[in-house]
């Protein structure tokens, strides 16, 4: 009988060893993995960049495409299921991780990727997030965090910062924002990373690292919504908004040193990486025990 791992063995993040190298592909090769030529995403939206990073990651890992299953919730980024040419399940708002967990347990050979927005993942789906992380089920959660509900027209979300304006916080948001990576880490995720739309090559590597990781992987993609977030807050200019990401994103290795740690800055890279028994492996152990018990 396989022994269960009793203690979580922590390891310092070593980006080089975790992340595969990715050489960006020509756009024609990316397009060959898309089903749509048009999207409903607004001009200036970074969802297309994050989608490209995801496709780059899948291609770089040379996965068996029949075994790729992409689940998504409801919201702007949920529409990715209509755009990418893999098997896709466009689920209900907030529930994508629960749908995906059932599929992964039913067929552990699947490469399950779960796309969620910040409201999707941390408000209505917050309970599913912490429990999927706690189970350490081998799925890769990719959150498009643009700090706003875009599909419904710019309401505050659980990652909208204090003071930010939205159509439901006209006088300034008084709720604190979740740090999604800290939430995922505290909940038991064994791979936690954050990247930006600004640096899509790093983002693609971080996503690939998550797919490669055997356990629950959480990748936060800092996205921009110039139309609904930018106009009410920083800037409605997509290029300017992306450039701000460059200033705010600090490599995890140097984050917190000297003056870099300001409230609008955030660490990027692999933030946490650990080994712990994966959930479907645990299911296999359970089956072995049940069958041995049955024979005894």
């Amino acid at each position: 009988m396989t022994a269960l791992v009793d203690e979580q063995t922590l390891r310092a993040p070593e980006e080089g060893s975790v992340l595969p190298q990715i050489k960006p592909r020509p756009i024609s090769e990316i397009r060959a993995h898309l089903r749509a030529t048009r999207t409903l995403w607004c001009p200036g939206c970074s969802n297309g960049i994050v989608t490209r990073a995801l496709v780059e990651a899948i291609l770089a890992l040379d996965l068996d495409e029949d075994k790729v299953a992409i689940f998504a919730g409801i919201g702007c980024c949920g529409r990715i299921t209509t755009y990418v040419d893999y098997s896709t399940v466009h689920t209900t708002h907030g529930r994508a991780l629960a749908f995906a967990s059932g599929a992964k347990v039913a067929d552990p050979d699947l490469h399950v990727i779960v796309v969620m927005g910040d409201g999707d993942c941390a408000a209505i789906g917050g309970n599913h997030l912490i429990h999927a992380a706690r189970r350490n089920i081998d799925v890769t959660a990719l959150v498009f965090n643009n700090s706003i509900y875009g599909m419904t027209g710019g309401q505050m979300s659980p990652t909208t910062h204090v003071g930010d304006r939205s159509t439901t916080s006209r006088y300034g948001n008084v709720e604190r924002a979740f740090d999604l990576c800290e939430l995922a880490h505290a909940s038991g995720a064994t791979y936690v990373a954050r990247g930006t739309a600004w640096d899509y090559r790093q983002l693609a590597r971080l996503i690939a690292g998550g797919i490669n990781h055997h356990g629950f992987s959480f990748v936060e993609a800092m996205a921009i919504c110039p139309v609904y977030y930018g106009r009410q807050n920083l800037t409605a200019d997509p290029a300017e908004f992306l450039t701000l990401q460059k200033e705010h994103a600090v490599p995890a290795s140097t984050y917190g040193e000297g003056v870099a740690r300001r409230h609008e800055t955030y660490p990027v890279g692999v933030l946490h990486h650990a080994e712990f028994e994966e959930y479907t492996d645990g299911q296999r152990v359970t089956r072995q025990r049940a069958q041995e018990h049955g024979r005894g």
Partner: protein
Amino acid sequence: MGKERVVLQGNEAVAEGALAAGARFFAGYPITPSTEIAERLSVRLPEVGGAFMQMEDEIASMAAVIGASLAGKKALTATSGPGFSLMQENLGYAAMAQVPCVVVNVMRGGPSTGLPTDPSQGDVMQARWGTHGEHSIITLIPSSVKECYHLTVRAFELSERHRTPVIVLSDAIIGHMREAIELPDPDELRVYPRRDPDYSVEEYEEIVSTVDNILPQASLGSRFKVHVTGLVYDRRSGSPDTSAPSVAAELGTYLREKIYLHRDALTDVEELFMDDAELAVFAYGSVARSAKSAVRWARERGLKVGLVRPITIWPFPTAAVEEMSRKVHTIIVPEMNLRQIAWEVQAASCSEARVVDYGRIDGKLIHPREIQELIERELTVKEHTA
């Protein structure tokens, strides 16, 4: 070797029926009075190579069941009242996206936390209309331990055949009652297999785009690309299309017709002493047991009383009710709710037959004596008005 005869609880029989039907995945959340189904399957599923998941809530349970079904496993969940309410969102998803799965609701007193350990039939309308939007659904309603077993097998067959969620509406009495049943040989059961389509990828796409019959759903991880959404979608491509009214109308009509055009084959009804009956009792689930006893009591006294017991409650057995209403002058509908099915009987009756409703919502089973008194009263009324 004779067949194995065992004493089982209704909830245990549901679990065994599910396994016999080929279910290999269960996701659920503990809730009285359905918990024994989860407990038994947590032991039994791993023994047969399946998987049991205890989820964070019933919303996630329903979602995981749909995910597992999409990945190629026959899947079920079991719950009661408040949990059934939480499942409604994703139950609608399964109806919309045409994902086969089975939901067992062991009814308890409600609304809200209500009477957690007491029986009720308060969810019969919720089973039909609980999720939002126009949709169709199949619901079976057992009234014995043996039926818990066989209707769970049947639920999986119908669910796979029609690519739709099927609800088994048990209740706290049926779920916790113990009876001796004979476990059938597996090859005696009508089990609808789960398999990927036999076509090539090109043929499959061609057929999906041209025919109207229900095709087997290819699984995630198969050689077919699978696209599933809860949005209104074009049935030929699987892609969302919310701009063309004709697409929404066609999909909605199809989702109804794929069940309603088959309602004669779907709706099972048990009839007792109906040949010469002048008064009928229409009862389902645990109440039908009391009704059967009362009808036998009436026959022993020479009273022409019969029983009609729906085994399929949705789609509603309209044809059987029509026929019953032509034969009798009075139909008594005892149920553990206030008129939910009596209204349906009234709507489906096509004669002068009086529909007499009798409801209890105090968590107590309707006793045979109460139905006997109703029969006596109604026959007396008829005598005086004749």
